[in-house]
């Protein structure tokens, strides 16, 4: 009888917190998310303070189109649910289904990122609204671009752990990695909820 602690015969119901390393990752990651909250708050504060300083360039009312933002919001919100499904299957020790749902999450995230790149491209080429146009431009691209950077990082992260563990299957060593990547993905959606409310909706009112 083998005693492989990372590949038990019966997987515990919370494989992400079954090892000390998993517990530490879990706590450390929430600590990081607390810090990220403050970091994004400083960018939101800057944006709110500078959003009317458009230096004669386009204003937020002229720039923002709600249709595109609505589609992007739906994509990111749905991808949050699909990663919940992925973690549901992880806890039921169904590796294949977890990978499928993570794949859907990645596809939705890529869709979001594509729309965001299109949006920035549109602003730059049709409105000549760039990072250097005005204080509003700098604050806008810093805040929304930083979030977009998080989306890109999250996608690369999820794709990497999916590929790295594709042949290994699920065990107590990689379960915390999947769980934490999904927490990161949810946090990206948390930030987006405030971006679509504070930047886009309040920008066109």
């Amino acid at each position, binding site marked *: 009888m083998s005693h492989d602690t990372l590949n038990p015969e019966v997987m515990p119901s919370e494989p992400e917190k079954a090892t000390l390393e998993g517990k530490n990752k879990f706590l450390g990651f929430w600590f990081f998310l607390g810090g990220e909250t403050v970091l994004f708050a400083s960018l939101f504060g800057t944006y709110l303070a500078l959003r009317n300083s458009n230096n004669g360039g386009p204003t937020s009312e002229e720039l923002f189109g*709600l249709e595109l933002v609505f589609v992007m*919001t739906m994509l990111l919100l749905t991808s949050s649910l699909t990663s919940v499904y992925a973690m549901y299957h992880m*806890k039921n020790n169904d590796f294949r289904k977890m990978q499928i749902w993570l794949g859907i999450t990645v596809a939705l995230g890529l869709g979001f990122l594509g729309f965001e790149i299109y949006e920035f491209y549109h602003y730059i080429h049709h409105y000549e609204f760039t990072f250097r146009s005005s204080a509003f431009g700098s604050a806008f691209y810093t805040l929304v671009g930083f979030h977009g950077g998080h989306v890109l990082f999250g996608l690369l992260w999820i794709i990497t752990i999916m590929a790295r563990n594709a042949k290994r299957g699920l065990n107590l060593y990689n379960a915390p990695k999947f769980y934490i990547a999904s927490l990161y993905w949810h946090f990206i959606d948390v930030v987006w909820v405030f971006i679509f409310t504070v930047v886009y909706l309040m920008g066109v009112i």
Partner: protein
Amino acid sequence: MAENTNSVQNELDYHKKKKKEEMKQQVITFALMIVFTIIAFTMVAAGLDKLFVIPIIVVLAIVQVIFQLYYFMHMSHKGHELPAIMMYGGISVAFLTILTFLVLIWW
């Protein structure tokens, strides 16, 4: 021994059932989040009064984020005391940061 395996199986079945119920709750949470989003966008598109719309969409955003944290990120589960301290600590500093930046440009 047989009895022991049986009880392990029973426990697994119990957890499986519980997780399934939770998953149902998550889908309801998701549906509510979609509804909140649609309400926020419709209110802005309808061009209602600024002073009326802004507080409502901010409250809708806060409720959505609470759903996201407590249900999607499982902060409602036990064993999340330290994550709660970290998030609430982060949120308090975040609040002060935004307040400071807004007060700075008040005049």
